[in-house]
């Protein structure tokens, strides 16, 4: 049945002593988190036009001629004004979309004169696509209105709180704390990397962060689930060994799922073009961080806290004899 030897990324049984490195890893995580938080304020997140607003400009060629959108995007991007939006639009006079007109949106850097920036943009466009006419220069506001912003934050906070409660009730309180700590850790580090790589923070980045949260949660729950199972199975084994065992047992799944997700995102980053690049890289890094955190943030917190074991002995919690010769 087996057509080819199945690839194995790991030997069938691993015995990594994860917990041994929990302390340095924890210190590293803490340092990186602090650095990320500092980074979010200084130099600060590179807020995109979605959040900060900017200026917009209409560019038109005579009717029937085609204006090269990517040439414009390339030229204006070269000015270092951050992400540039170029969107084709129907002609103002007859509302016919013949590809001759575009709206260009860009940011006006702080402290710079708008008219001056607009002149630079116009010069760059002239050079890229030849003679065009400009109209409708105006200031544009942010896409994220106050209500949208506050409701988004509210939603996020409520979602985190509810996940915390869910894990608290499904597992133990310390599991809930571990999971939420891991999640906050992932969120902060993803922000840090966005700052580090000077990616523009846009609405798409918000989606990327939400996705990272979702992935991190999924990964953590998988590890915790195994941990809970092993805690019941091996009542006398020291907690640190149970954690190591659970991490090792889930490791091959963690790696396979992680590699799949990262692989897809790498493809998206390589072939997806400029528009998808920052988004896919942020997601990819977030998923790597999320995988790391379920090993080194969630579980160690449980160890720090300790787990009540064997307090209530129910049927399920009794040691199960499975004839596992290879297991301790």
């Amino acid at each position: 049945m087996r057509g080819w030897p199945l690839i194995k990324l790991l030997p069938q049984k691993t015995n990594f002593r994860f917990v041994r490195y929990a302390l340095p890893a924890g210190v590293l995580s803490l340092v990186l988190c602090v650095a990320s938080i500092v980074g979010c304020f200084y130099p600060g997140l590179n807020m995109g036009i979605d959040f900060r607003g900017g200026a917009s400009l209409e560019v038109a060629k005579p009717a029937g001629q085609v204006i090269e959108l990517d040439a414009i995007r390339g030229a204006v991007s070269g000015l270092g004004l951050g992400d540039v939006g170029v969107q084709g639009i129907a002609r103002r006079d007859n509302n016919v979309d013949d590809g001759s007109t575009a709206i260009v949106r860009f940011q006006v850097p702080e402290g710079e004169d708008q008219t001056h920036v607009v002149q630079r943009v116009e010069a760059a466009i002239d050079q890229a696509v030849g003679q065009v006419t400009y109209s409708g220069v105006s200031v544009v506001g942010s896409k994220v209105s106050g209500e949208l912003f506050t409701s988004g934050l509210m939603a996020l906070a409520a979602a985190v709180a509810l996940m915390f409660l869910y894990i608290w009730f499904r597992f133990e309180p310390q599991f809930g704390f571990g999971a939420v700590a891991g999640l906050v850790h992932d969120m902060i580090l993803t922000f840090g990397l966005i700052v580090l790589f000077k990616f523009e923070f846009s609405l798409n980045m918000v989606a990327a962060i939400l996705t990272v949260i979702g992935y991190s949660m999924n990964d953590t729950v998988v590890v915790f689930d195994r941990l809970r199972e092993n805690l019941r199975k091996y009542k006398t084994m020291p907690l640190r060994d149970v954690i190591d065992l659970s991490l090792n047992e889930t490791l091959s799944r963690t790696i396979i799922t992680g590699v799949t997700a990262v692989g897809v995102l790498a493809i998206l980053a390589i072939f997806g073009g400029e528009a998808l690049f920052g988004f896919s890289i942020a997601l990819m890094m977030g998923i790597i961080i999320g995988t790391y955190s379920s090993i080194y943030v969630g579980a160690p917190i449980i160890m720090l806290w300790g787990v009540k074991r064997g307090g209530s002995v129910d049927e399920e919690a009794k040691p199960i004899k499975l004839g596992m010769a290879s297991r301790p």
Partner: protein
Amino acid sequence: MIQLSRWKVVLVGLSLVLGLLLAYPNVLSPEQRASLPGWLPKNALNLGLDLQGGSHLLLEVDVPAMREKRITNMAEDVRVTLREERININGIQREGGGVVVSIANPAQFDLAMTAIRNLAAAGAAGGVQERTATRMSDNRIRYAFTEQALANMGATAVDQSIEVVRRRIDSLGTREPSITRQGSDRIVVQAPGESDPAQLERVIGQTAQLTFQMVDVENTANFMQTGLVPPDAEVLQDAQGNIYLVKKRILVSGENLTRASVDSDQSGRPAIGFRFDGQGARRFGEATSANIGKPFAIILDGKVLSAPNIKSAITGGSGIIEGNFGLAEASEMVNLLNGGALPAPLKVEERRVVSAELGADAVAKGALSTAIGFVLIVVFMMLSYGLLFGGVSVLGLLLNGLLIVAAMSLTQATLTLPGIAGLILTFAVAVDANVLIYERMRDEARSGRSVVASMDAGFNKAMGTIVDANLTTLVAALIMFMFGAGPVRGFAWTLTIGVFTSMFSSVMVAQVLLSWWLKTAKPKTLPIADEPVRQAGKTATAAAE
């Protein structure tokens, strides 16, 4: 669990058929879709503004009109307040950013001054007083907006309009329009897809100012004869052209509305149900108990919807508005009322077609890379778990993709780039479910169980983890959908759909296909096991293959 149960096969088959039926319109051209018979689903995926483009409206917020209106309301406030205090006035005049009222009796001047000061203080928003009352010569009092308030009025109106417009055109939160301020008093609205610009304009074009006012019964007869309108009344019409003389004083307005819904009257015709907040309910209760037997008018944007007689005091704070509405009209009105009133009228300055925000080149690249990504998953799963087990999870993924397209087409949620992020997560989690199951099977096989036992245990034990992980995600997604707005909501919706479809397809499809394989092939070894394990053997033998 691993037996081939009939209901699972039926369920997978049904979902496949339903998925195909709902996703099918996506491969048709718009003309072909339109010619489908009526009972077939016709909706294709709704792509977002960033992927597909749509319509573009440039709106101007009519700030002067709003300013005018607010000053008129100010005059009415003063008139009512002074009457309640029994202070006689000679008249109220408009002047600049406010009104000037002259008091008839100098003895009442101080009383009037205090009353108007209180009125000004009552209107203070966030501790900042917007209105001031100043003493003038000849027993006159000037009641006006501060310079600051007048200057801010425009900006505030634009901000409020943006929120109202968003609530109206995106009441479900899954349409994902882009609404931005442009310049000082303009708003650009871009809505995705082939959404009907005329409908868009109709929805945006109404201020949706709902008021309840008493009909001026005492003066109606006189007005009909002489055409004389008392200073505290106005003349309004309903849709049929009937004329009403209505008191200017607003009993309750749309601001006190907490919820409107489509309802029906006693004879089953569509009506609009409404519910007031505490303050609105109290005012409505007071007004109705004081005026039993008299008619009041329900007015939307200066048009009388209906003018029923008050049969009894309405203290519960809810009721229905009857009128000659069609169902579509009623639901559009409900949407307007729930979105809140626009602070100022909006004028459409420009309407145009726009193409995708990301640009056609970017969208094409995105589609290509998604396809490559999928191939990568397929190859990777095949390499890791072999033709059979890998293939089964790929089939599960395909069904998952089909069901997602079907569900998104059915609910007409808009697929945007953030939504695609949600989908990538969904696929990752779907693959994860299969990986969890297979790794569990391996574990069990390793510990010396038979093929059937290890597959059974693999499903059973992995299921708990899968359910936990997915429920956590679902909890988060539902909360984000409830509280979030705009892109957060769109993301949450895609994620919610994805959790259901991926749980179903990756677990069910694997169960059905693998149990069928188990039944027909009667395998001696588990193909994904590390080393072939002899059936029911306690020790693994290395030379079985």
